[in-house]
C-alpha cells in the first residue's frame, strides 16, 4: 500500500511548490537599492526648452521613474499602460531616456503619447548604471524622502500596477514627511 502512495506524495510536494510560486513574480528582481536613497542625478530634459532636473527637485513627493528608450521593443508593451496611469494622476511619472537618440525619443513620444511629466536624457547611461538598470524598461517607486521603495524589471503589467504599485504609492503618499 505504502509504495502506491508514493506518486501522490511526490505530487503533493510538487503542488505545494507551485502554490508557493504563484505568489512569486518571476519578473521581480531583487535590487540592492530598495530602502536606499535614490542615486543622485542632474540631467538635461528631453524637451529642448526644459531646465535641467535633479533628484533634489523631486523631494517631498512620491514619484515614479520609468527607464525607457525608443529602441526598446518591450517598452511599447507597457506604453499604453503608462499613458493610462499618467491620466489617472496617481503620482508623477518621470522618464529616464536611456542611451537613446534624443530626436528618435522625441518622435516616439509625440507619435504615441507622452505619459511623463518630464524625461531626462541619460545619453551615456551613467545614471542607468547608478540605478542598476538591468534591462529596459524598468520602473522605480521613490518616496517623499527620496528613498527607492520598489523596483519592477521588464514591462509593467496591469496586474503589477494595480496590485503592487498603485497601493504602494497610496500608502507612501499617506506617510508624513519627518
Amino acid at each position, binding site marked *: 500500500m505504502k509504495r502506491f502512495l508514493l506518486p501522490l506524495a511526490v505530487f503533493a510536494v510538487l503542488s505545494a511548490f507551485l502554490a508557493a510560486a504563484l505568489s512569486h513574480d*518571476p*519578473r521581480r528582481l531583487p535590487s540592492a537599492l530598495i530602502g536606499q536613497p535614490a542615486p543622485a542625478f542632474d540631467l538635461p530634459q528631453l524637451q529642448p526648452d526644459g531646465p535641467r532636473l535633479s533628484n533634489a527637485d523631486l523631494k517631498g513627493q512620491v514619484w515614479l521613474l520609468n527607464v525607457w528608450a525608443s529602441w526598446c521593443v518591450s517598452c511599447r508593451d507597457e506604453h499604453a499602460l503608462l499613458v493610462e496611469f499618467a491620466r489617472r494622476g496617481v503620482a508623477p511619472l518621470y522618464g529616464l531616456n536611456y542611451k537613446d537618440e534624443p530626436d528618435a525619443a522625441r518622435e516616439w513620444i509625440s507619435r504615441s503619447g507622452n505619459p511623463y511629466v518630464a524625461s531626462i536624457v541619460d545619453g551615456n547611461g551613467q545614471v542607468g548604471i547608478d540605478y542598476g538598470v538591468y534591462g529596459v524598461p524598468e520602473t522605480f517607486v521613490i518616496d517623499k524622502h527620496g528613498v527607492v521603495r520598489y523596483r519592477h524589471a521588464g514591462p509593467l503589467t496591469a*496586474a503589477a500596477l494595480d496590485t503592487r504599485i498603485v497601493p504602494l504609492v497610496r500608502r507612501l503618499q499617506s506617510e508624513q514627511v519627518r
Partner: protein
Amino acid sequence: MIPEIGHFALIVALALALVNGVLPIVGAARGWTHWMRVAWPVARAQFVVVAIAFGCLAASFLGNDFSVLYVASHSNSMLPPVYRVTAVWGGHEGSLLLWTLLLTLWMAAVSVLSRQLPRAMVARVLGVMSWIAAGFLLFMLFTSNPFARLLPPAVDGRDLNPLLQDPGMVSHPPILYMGYVGFAVAFAFAIAALLSGELNAAWARWSRPWTTAAWIFLTLGIMLGSGWAYYELGWGGWWFWDPVENASFMPWLAGTALIHSLAVTEKRGAFRSWTVLLAICTFSLSLLGTFLVRSGVITSVHSFAADPARGIFILAFLSIVAGGALLLFAWRAPKIGLGGGFDPVSRESLLLSNNVLLMVAAASVLLGTLYPLFLDVLGLGKISIGPPYFDSIFVPLMTPAVFLMGIGPIARWKSARLPELAVRLRWAGAASVVAALALPWVVGGWKPLVGLGILLAAWCVSASAVALWERIAQQQGPLAARFSRLPSAFCGMLLAHVGIGVFIVGVTFVKGYETERDVRLEPGESLTEGGYAFRFTGTREIDGPNYRAARATVEVSRDGRTVAVLHPEKRLFIVQQTPMTEAAIDRGVFRDLYVAMGEQVGAGNAWTMRVHIKPFVNWIWAGCLLMALGGALAACDRRYRLVPRKRRAAVPAPVSVSAPASVSLTVPRSPRGAAPAPGTATREAGTGSEAGEAGR
C-alpha cells in the same frame, strides 16, 4: 448578440458536462442501464454546444466586433481574414476554448467509435472526460471569459501578435492541443478501469489506439512548433528548451512510455499498475504544461500576462484531477496483481528499462524546468537553466534507450537469451559501427559526438531492418505476399523506430557541422560561407496588409552557378510597432541555406545579415513525420477493428479470445495460448464480462 449566444452556449455546455459527469458514472456503479445511456447523446451534444461557442467567437473575429474585449486585444481590421480565424486561439481565453472544443471532439469520437466496448466502460470514460470538460468550462466562465464585452467598444483592435501571423500558427496549436487533450482519453480509460476494478488486457487493448492517436497529434504538433520556431524566430534554432516547449515534451516522453507499457499490458497482462500510473502521469503533465504556460509562474518567450486568479484556478484543478487520480490509484492499485512473470532478459524487461529511461528523462526535463522556480520559492536566489543542462542530461539517457530500442522488437516475450540476441544483431551492429566511422568523415570531419549520434541512428535503422528481415524470412510464399501479410502494427513500430534514427541523423549533423556568420553588407557586396557565395543586391520597400517591410535580395551561388535567390524580409507591423524578421530559406535534403536580416546600419542601404548553413536539418522533421506515420499505421491495425466482429460471432462462449490471425502474426514466438501466464486468466475474465455486456 453573437457573443451572448456564445457565452450562453458555454453555460449550457457546463450544465451538460455536469450531468454527464454524474449520471453515467453513478449508473455504471449501480448497474442502471438507463442512466449509463445518457453518456452517448450528451457527449455529442457537449461537442455541438462548444462548437457553437467556438463558431460565435470566430464570427466575432471575422466581423471585427471590437466590442468583445478578446477580439479587440487580439485582432485588427487590417488583419487578413485567415489570421482573424487563427487569432481565435492567439490568446489565453481562446486557447482555452480551443482546448475545450477539442476535448469534446475526442468525447464525441469515443462515443461514435466505441460500439464494441462494454457499455459501463464507455459510460465511465465519457463521465470522467465530462468532469475535465466541466473544469475547463468553469475556468473560462469564472476567470477567462472570451466573450466579455468592452464598453465602450474599441475603435480598432490591438492586432494579433505578429509572431503568430504565420501559416505555421494556423495548424500548430490545434494539432498540439489535439495531442495534449487526446491523452485525456487514455487518462479516462485508466480512471474508468480503476473505478471498475477491471484493469486487464482488454482495457489495455481498448485504450491503445486512442493513446497512439493522441501521441501522433502531439508528435506532429511539436514538429510543427519546432519548424515554426526555426523559420519564424529568425535565430535558426529548432529547439530552445524553453519552458513552454518542455511543457509539450514532457507529456510526449511520458506518452511514449505509455504506448510501450500498454503493449506489454495487452500482450502479457504485466505492468498493469505501472501502465495506469503512466496514463495518469501523461495527462497530468499535459495539465501541468497548461498551468506553467497560463499562470505565468515561469518566464518564457511564450508566456502571456500573468494573472494570479487564473494560476490558482488551474493549480486547484490540477490538484483535483491528478491528486484525485493518484489517490484512487493508491487505493485500487494494491489489488491489481502483477500479471505474467518474466525473466531479467526478455522483451518485457527491455521495454521496462526503456520505460524507466523515458520517465527519468521526463523527470529531468521537469526538474530543469521547475528548478529555478524551486530555488526562488525557497529564497535561494534567481537562476536560469539553459540548454547545457538539458543536453548533458539527454545524451546519456537517450543513448541506452535507443540501444535497447533496437533489441526490443526481436527479443522474445517472457524469456530471451543474450548470446542469441547478439548473434541475430551482429550484422546490424557491424553496419552501425562502419556507418559511425565513415559517414561523419564524409559529411564534415570525424568528431566523437557525431560518431556516437550516427552509431545510434544507424543502429535504429539496421536493427529495424533485421527485425523486418526475420519476420519476412519466417513466412512462406512470394516476397510481395509476405510483405502484404505483415501486420500494420508491426510495420508502424519499425517505421517509428526508423523515424527516431532519421531524427538523430538530423540533430547530429546540425549540431556537429552547422555554421553561421553575421556580416554587414553593402548592396553589391557578398560573403562566402561553406563554399556558397551570398551576394546582397539590395532591398526594396513592400507593403503588406498590416505591415511594411524591407525585402532584400540575396543571390546564392556555388562555383559560379546560381543555387537560389532568397528574399529575407524585415517587417514592421504597423499597429503594435513590432519589427519581425522573416528568414528566407533554401531547403534541401542535405542542407538548408538560411538568411535573416538584422538591422539597417548607417545612412546608406547597408544591412547586417545573418547567414546559416544547416546540414541535414530537414531530417529532424522528416524523422518526426515518420514517427507519426508509424503511429498511424499502428493505430490502424486490423486487430483493433476485428474485435467486434469476432466477438459478435462468439457471444455465447465467454472465453473465446483465441487470438485472431493477425495477433498471432504480431507475436510469432509469443507463448500466448500455449503457456497460460497468470495474466491470461484475468484477461479472459475481463473479456467474459465484455462479452456479457455486448448483448445490449
